[in-house]
């Protein structure tokens, strides 16, 4: 039980910091942005690509990637150290996250030798951004319900259907797409995974406006897209296995990278010092102090939970347990905390005063928090995972279990 860097970690951290000092500028202020992997304009996309290339050239782009694929062959803990340090600098959004953290590791397991050789080095070097085309309007929590259809004609597949919630699809060059190839078997058994070219005119991405006003993800319409069988990943009808690898990597990424996302309780204390409640500074009110203390204890707990995940990773264990609780608790904490901040603002909660960036920030926090509770496996799904996989409760009754997809 040691909270400090080991000497090897400290050495690594020093090297990282030295390189970052030479290649980037330190941020000012403590307020980190929540959304660090979405590019919000074309310029950011260009900057992200340049930064990715710069990191790749210096050997930092694939810290946990095996050396054979151009990586550093480092430990998960080194990746964490890198993330911590890079977070201190003013760098472009990590638009290549899906490619580096999700698609790359999936291809390493399920890709053909040719796919790995053709794709992985360029992926790491920032040759194009990737997106993940799994979810569909009728396949949300029930991810295996995809209806996008791929039909084979010789060595070519023709794909038609609709995807949704696809982060960054509108500026991606490449996609990993899950399609239904056999509707005559139960739903988990008839899907296949493909690599697709997002620049193909048969694909149209339309950004979706979220309730916060931001546009992070897309509806993607696919109409008669032709894909060579060489771009199939894994077995025909074996797409679910491939998807599970991607999803496991997604959970890892979400739980390590973002378990402590959102506003900090320190900012809440700051706010409570400046607003009045019942005729006194709010920070003097016992309920305000109590609420902030509870939020703090929960937020610290999530921070330390992410350290437990890192420890499991660095010991070569799979961090299933802690990942699900971090995911489950974070969304609700963010929603409660930002809701409480708005409460503290009184009637001003109903406006975002142009003279006060803070009210806008808390409203934005409040309007993005619900996304935490539904994306990457909704709260309800996380509870099922914990109860079934960890506590051994019986699985939900599945009326669709042995039914061919076309009869659902």
């Amino acid at each position: 039980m040691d909270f400090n860097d080991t000497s090897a970690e400290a050495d690594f951290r020093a090297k990282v910091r030295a390189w970052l000092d030479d290649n980037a500028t330190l941020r000012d202020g403590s307020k980190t942005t929540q959304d660090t992997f979405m590019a919000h304009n074309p310029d950011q996309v260009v900057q992200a690509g340049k930064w990715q290339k710069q990191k790749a050239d210096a050997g930092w782009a694939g810290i946990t990637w095996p050396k054979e694929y151009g990586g550093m062959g480092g430990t998960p803990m080194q990746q964490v150290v890198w993330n911590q340090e890079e977070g201190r600098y003013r760098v472009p959004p990590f638009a290549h996250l899906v490619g580096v953290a999700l698609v790359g590791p999936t291809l390493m397991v399920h890709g053909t030798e040719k796919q790995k050789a053709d794709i992985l080095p360029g992926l790491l070097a920032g040759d194009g951004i990737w997106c993940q085309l799994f979810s569909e309007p009728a396949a949300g929590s029930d991810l295996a319900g995809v209806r996008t259809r791929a039909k084979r004609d010789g060595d070519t597949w023709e794909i038609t259907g609709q995807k949704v919630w696809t982060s960054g699809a509108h500026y991606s060059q490449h996609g990993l797409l899950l399609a239904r190839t056999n509707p005559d078997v139960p739903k988990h058994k008839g899907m296949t995974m493909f690599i697709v070219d997002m620049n193909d005119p048969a694909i149209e991405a339309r950004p979706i406006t979220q309730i916060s006003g931001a546009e992070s993800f897309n509806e993607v319409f696919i109409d008669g897209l032709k894909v060579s069988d060489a771009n199939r990943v894994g077995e025909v009808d074996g797409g679910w296995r491939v998807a599970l690898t991607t999803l496991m990597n997604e959970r890892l990424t979400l739980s390590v990278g973002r378990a402590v996302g959102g506003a900090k309780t320190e900012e809440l204390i700051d706010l409570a010092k400046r607003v009045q409640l019942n005729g006194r500074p709010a920070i003097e009110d016992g309920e305000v102090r109590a609420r902030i203390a509870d939020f703090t204890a929960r937020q610290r707990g999530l921070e330390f939970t992410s350290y437990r995940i890192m420890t499991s990773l660095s010991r070569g264990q799979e961090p299933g347990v802690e990942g699900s609780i971090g995911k489950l608790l974070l969304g609700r904490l963010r929603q409660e905390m930002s809701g409480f901040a708005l409460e503290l603002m009184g009637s001003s909660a109903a406006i975002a005063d142009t003279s006060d960036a803070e009210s806008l920030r808390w409203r934005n926090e409040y309007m993005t928090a619900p996304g935490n509770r539904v994306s990457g496996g909704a709260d309800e799904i996380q509870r099922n995972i914990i109860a079934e996989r960890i506590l051994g409760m019986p699985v939900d009754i599945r009326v669709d279990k042995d039914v061919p997809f076309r009869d659902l």
Partner: protein
Amino acid sequence: MDFGFSEDQDAIREAAGRLLDENATLVGAHLLLNENPDGFDGDLWSKLAEGGWLGIGIPEEYGGSGMGAVELAVLAEEIGRTLACIPFAQAMYLVAPAVVQHGSDAQKSALLPAIASGKKIVTAALSENGGIAPGVITAKVSGGLIQGVKSPVPDGGNADVALVAALDDTGQPGLYLVDLTGPGVEREALDATDRTRPMARLTFDGAPADALTGANGAAIKKLVDGAAILVAFEQIGLAGRALAVSSDYAKERKAFGRPIGGFQAIKHRLADMFAKIELARSNAFFGAWALASDDARLAEAAACARLTALDACQYAGEETIQIHGGIGITWIADPHLFVRRGWHLKALLGPAAIWRERLIQALPEGNS
């Protein structure tokens, strides 16, 4: 004892509900949200005026129908239920009662018929810097002219007249009618959380202010208590609509081969929403009676109604998003309308913290 509505009151609910259902749709709210965030639903407003609904709480001699607080509460719930985008609340729950109770004949004649007929939009400007308690007032009236800033003011950009809380020369709070179309008034539209209900900042620099005699601190408190009860009905209507929309979605949307409403995670949450709404409704009923009969327990009743309605409304809004899943966090879907209107109704009279304190102070035992 009879803790329900009369047949006449049920008839009001039905008639008003029909008019609102036909004219105030969620599609309409989305349109306003996207295309006219500083405006309101003028067509609906005209129809309500034509039907006499704007005069429901105004005496017959001033052009209203002279009904009571319970009838107004029935209408309020329907307005909340249909998310009507109109400058109703401030006008009917605060301005009209203030003028009826404290206005001179001249003030009543000048304003009440214009409110009842829909000819004048009126609002109440109580908040300063987000606070609504009498202690936060810094606006000042001297020699019949007002100086100060009020923010946020619902419909402040569209209203003709505002009822403004301000201090007099002796530092006592009071209520004043200010013509917003006259001199000494500056209005600035604000970025409202609920863009279907616009907010503005009003800056007064020597605008003529017409005092409501006798509307002192205690009177303001009582007016706000009454408004809290009526707003609670709007909140209950709103939360009930969120529940209805969520229930419909849960019956339609399928996952794992069956409607998500069949999963206890969803159905039990809907049951919790329902329970919170009905608890608030019970408190609101008592509040309506206390308001209509000028009962001594009005302050306690108002705080209980507001606290439980705030809770029901926020829970219903947030969980409506959650039950809708990915759809719930998109701008084009309905759930965020409920959340945004919820914050608007909270802002009208302030957050739970100040009402908890009001409740404790209203209890005989709490007044230590």
